[in-house]
């Protein structure tokens, strides 16, 4: 940093001013003249044939303008839409509903209350079918067929996938002195951003242009998909993602509500707003996880890991609508060899359709890296306990070493850089590890009321999707972009193809440009989310903003600098080859004469008013950045818990997180990302779960039943960092936003298991609610009766 808001400085956020004064502009804040409101009629059944939909009573309600069903959308070929995984999802259903809360009809009315009145008066006649809400049950021979709309589909089998070398792995397992196996369910979660999904469709017949304000993490891709589905040319569609009240992967897919709001405004030629309620959000939009994983490790007696094997049963819901690069049906799950130098690995996965909402990739998962890290970090603990080894030591013994990078994993990943032992050592020291190991032993020996457990997770992330040769979303390569325009008076507007949902891009992207151009961060405005004005990008998810658009911002800045050099030479009356850039001062100067210097801010006018001969006027640049590789941030988390033997309650005694995301743009913002992600990791491990009953009813589908952690359940975190830059990234930065949620759940489960390991417990399923923990205590003979 140069002291004016460059790299590494704790710049206070530019976006805060409007949010702390109530002047943010979220979708539901938008009011347009003549705007109508849309309420969706949803299925009360998980699986049922629709015999008839009667709109007549709804249409009689004063203020109801229209009732749309699939038949109305068929006319525009909008009754179904493609998913990001080459499946087809109903926008509105007219034949068979496949999950509870699925969209059946849309009522458009003058206000939201009237729309609800109308929705209650749409009479749908259902013929109820047997539902199947469990992936294993769905694959039974006699399971009811869910997808009778797919030609040739005879069962609920969705897809198969494999990775690694089956034969070589089997050989290692056959001969290994030690093998361990564990079955673990990464339960169905929901990202549950505090703002739900919503949209305002606004078709202007005069301009023949459709504008959709929507809660979108990927507005450009959404525009392209809207164009492909609707047939409206892309230049006549404008998607605007305004301020977004949290995304966490929930706002990547296209949902039926968006399509209905857009289609209704097109048909009615009036703006139409759709904003879902919380229960609709949890019950119908993209869930996360739902991987039932068998993990196996093969090792030597002294703890050297020889091979990993896994078999996964994945629940994809009623449609394969997983939001991920098209060539990765299991996301980046095959990063499951983790931070360890393991030569041999094999994994298989079977996905099933069930009568549940679609989804899978969301909630800070980096495309299934949460599942991969959970698998390997849990298994390392299982192996450590089997061998009686310290879980820190066994990690140290197996880590990929700093000199091995770039490291090619047995499943084909090319890790960019890392120094895992350094991060672990730092975490162990911050956590006062040896003290807690002694205290743990003391409590066991004194038969204390509260057991102590210490959990470790030393994870490697893979973020920044991604190289165009392998990564695409619906065919569009996963580059990203930045456009920088320096104005005559020396300040600048920067537009990016990514879309913040609270991660602070308006501040941090300005910092990147400030650093590269020697500008003051306050002289730079960052814009995003408007497809009419911003360069095309793939959006924000998978912690890809810094790796991809961050790189683009740096490269575009350097292009600006290159042109500015010619202007600087002109202004300083020197030859261009004698002009050098001084990163420290953020100025150009004449080689050998540092006092003859000039800043970008000072030369901006020259670009417009005194351009050198042969140069085009203006000072701006654009870069579309195709990343050569992913970035691989890493970290070590250590969690110390107290487990109450009477109640099964778990308290966090200490929570240490050491992250390494390479060069750090804004430490304050990184820390905020870590805190938030760790809180979600605690939610994951301790309380969050979307549950169903046998009839397919969502029983964990609102905030009464899907529990988010409050200020009372979240401890203070101790964060630390190391810096191992990404060698291929223009500013050496890696993504980090999802690391805490990827890394923390196994650390937490490892800690609770660790508290009971002396009783022979090797695994506890999430969420570890007090009743679940108490049962394990009881099973281990460690439960204490209330006095």
């Amino acid at each position, binding site marked *: 940093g140069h002291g004016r808001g460059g790299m590494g400085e704790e710049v*206070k*956020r530019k*976006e*805060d*001013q*409007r*949010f*702390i*004064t*109530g*002047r*943010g502009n*979220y979708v*539901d*804040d938008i*009011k347009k003249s003549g705007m109508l409101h849309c309420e969706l009629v949803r299925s009360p059944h998980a699986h049922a044939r629709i015999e008839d939909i009667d709109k007549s009573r709804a249409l009689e309600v*004063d*203020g109801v303008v229209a009732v749309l069903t699939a038949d109305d959308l068929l006319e525009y070929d909008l009754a179904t839409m493609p998913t990001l995984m080459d499946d087809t999802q109903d926008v509105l259903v007219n034949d068979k509903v496949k999950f509870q809360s699925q969209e059946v009809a849309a009522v458009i009315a003058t206000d*939201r*209350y009237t729309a609800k009145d109308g929705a209650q008066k749409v009479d749908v006649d259902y013929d109820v079918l047997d539902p199947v809400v469990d992936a294993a049950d769905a694959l039974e021979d006699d399971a009811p067929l869910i997808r009778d709309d797919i030609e040739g589909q005879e069962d609920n089998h969705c897809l198969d996938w494999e990775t690694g070398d089956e034969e070589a792995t089997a050989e290692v397992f056959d001969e290994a002195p030690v093998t361990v196996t564990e079955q673990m369910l990464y339960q169905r979660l929901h990202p*549950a*951003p*505090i*703002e*739900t999904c919503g949209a305002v469709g606004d078709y202007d017949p005069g301009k023949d242009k459709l504008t959709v304000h929507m809660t979108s993490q990927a507005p450009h891709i959404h525009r392209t998909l809207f164009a492909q589905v609707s047939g409206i040319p892309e230049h006549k569609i404008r998607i605007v993602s305004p*301020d*977004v*009240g*949290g*995304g*966490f992967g929930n706002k990547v897919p296209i949902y039926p509500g968006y399509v209905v709001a857009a289609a209704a405004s097109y048909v009615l030629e009036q703006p139409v707003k759709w904003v879902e*309620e*919380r*229960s609709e959000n949890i019950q119908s939009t993209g869930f996360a996880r739902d991987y039932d994983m068998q993990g196996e490790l093969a090792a030597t007696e002294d703890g050297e890991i020889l091979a990993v094997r896994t078999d996964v049963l994945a629940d994809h819901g009623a449609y394969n609508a997983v939001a991920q690069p098209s060539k990765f049906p299991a996301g980046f799950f095959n990063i499951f060899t983790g931070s360890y130098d393991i030569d041999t690995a094999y994994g298989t996965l079977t996905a099933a359709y069930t009568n549940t909402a679609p989804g899978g990739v969301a909630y800070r998962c980096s495309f299934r890296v949460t599942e991969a890290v959970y698998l390997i970090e849990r298994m390392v603990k299982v192996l450590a306990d089997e061998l009686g080894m310290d879980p820190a030591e066994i990690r140290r013994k197996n880590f990929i070493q700093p000199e091995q990078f770039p490291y090619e994993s047995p499943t084909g990943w090319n890790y960019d850089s890392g120094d895992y032992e350094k991060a672990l050592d730092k975490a162990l020291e911050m956590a006062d590890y040896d003290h807690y190991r002694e205290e743990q032993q003391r409590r066991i020996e004194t038969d204390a009321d509260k057991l102590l457990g210490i959990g470790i997770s030393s994870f490697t992330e893979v973020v920044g999707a991604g190289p165009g040769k392998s990564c695409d979303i619906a065919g569009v390569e996963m580059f990203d972009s930045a456009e920088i325009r320096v104005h005559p008076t020396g300040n600048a507007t920067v537009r990016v193809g990514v879309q913040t*949902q*609270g*991660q*602070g891009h308006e501040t941090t992207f300005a910092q990147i440009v400030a650093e590269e151009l020697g500008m003051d961060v306050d002289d730079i405005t960052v814009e995003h989310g408007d497809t009419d004005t911003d360069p095309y990008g793939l959006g924000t998810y998978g912690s890809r903003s810094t790796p991809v658009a961050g790189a683009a911002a740096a490269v575009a800045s350097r292009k600006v600098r290159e042109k500015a050099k010619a202007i600087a030479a002109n202004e300083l009356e020197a030859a261009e080859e004698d002009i050098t850039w001084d990163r420290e001062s953020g100025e150009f100067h004449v080689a050998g004469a540092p006092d003859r210097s000039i800043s970008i801010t000072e030369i901006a006018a020259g670009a417009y008013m005194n351009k050198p001969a042969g140069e085009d006027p203006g000072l701006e640049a654009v870069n579309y950045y195709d990343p050569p590789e992913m970035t691989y941030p890493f970290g070590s988390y250590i969690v110390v818990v107290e487990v109450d033997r009477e109640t099964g309650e778990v308290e966090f005694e200490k929570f240490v997180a050491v992250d390494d995301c390479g060069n750090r743009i804004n430490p*304050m*913002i990184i*820390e*905020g*990302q*870590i*805190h*938030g*992600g*760790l*809180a*979600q990791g605690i939610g994951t491990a301790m309380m969050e779960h979307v549950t169903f009953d046998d009839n397919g009813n969502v029983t964990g589908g*609102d*905030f*009464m039943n899907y529990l*988010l952690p*409050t*200020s*009372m359940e*979240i401890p*203070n*975190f101790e964060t630390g960092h190391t810096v191992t830059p990404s060698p291929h990234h223009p500013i050496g930065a890696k993504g980090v936003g999802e690391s805490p949620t990827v890394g923390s759940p196994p650390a937490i489960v490892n800690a609770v298991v660790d508290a009971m390991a002396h009783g022979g417990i090797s695994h506890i399923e999430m969420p570890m609610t007090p009743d679940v923990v108490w049962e394990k205590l009881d099973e281990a003979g460690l439960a204490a009766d209330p006095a």
Partner: protein
Amino acid sequence: MTDTREITLTVNGTEHTIEVEPRQLLVHAIREELDLTGTHIGCDTGNCGACTVLRDGEPIKSCLMFATQADGSDLMTVEGMEDLPEAGGELHPLQEGFREEHGLQCGYCTPGMIMAGKALLDENPNPSEADIREAISGNLCRCTGYQNIVRSIEYAAEELEHGEI
């Protein structure tokens, strides 16, 4: 259309007389009739607290009350914070605290959090960390992990104690 009733609300010091249906929730009246869109809606079960406002000085979740029930009340929303004397014509120390301590990210829970913080500090100018955590336990945040929100409110408490008003 359903019958409407005329109610009077004093919001951030200004009196408003509006027509509302008896079933209209206070949060919708604030957002849609008065265009004060800082107050947000994050759930449908009264859990999240994004709609927290002060009613006659007490924090309430405005999604759990009909507008008609608030007839005659004195309401305060986040938009009124800058007009308070302790804001000195600029940001209120609570607002400042949230920015200084990075107590917000997406900003969606922030207005409700600030109002919950205000209710706490009005009652208890020197709260402990435990007091703060309890006071905001009806306000869900999905971004910050709460730690910096606690610091933000501590910052404001200190500013209010030592700052000049």
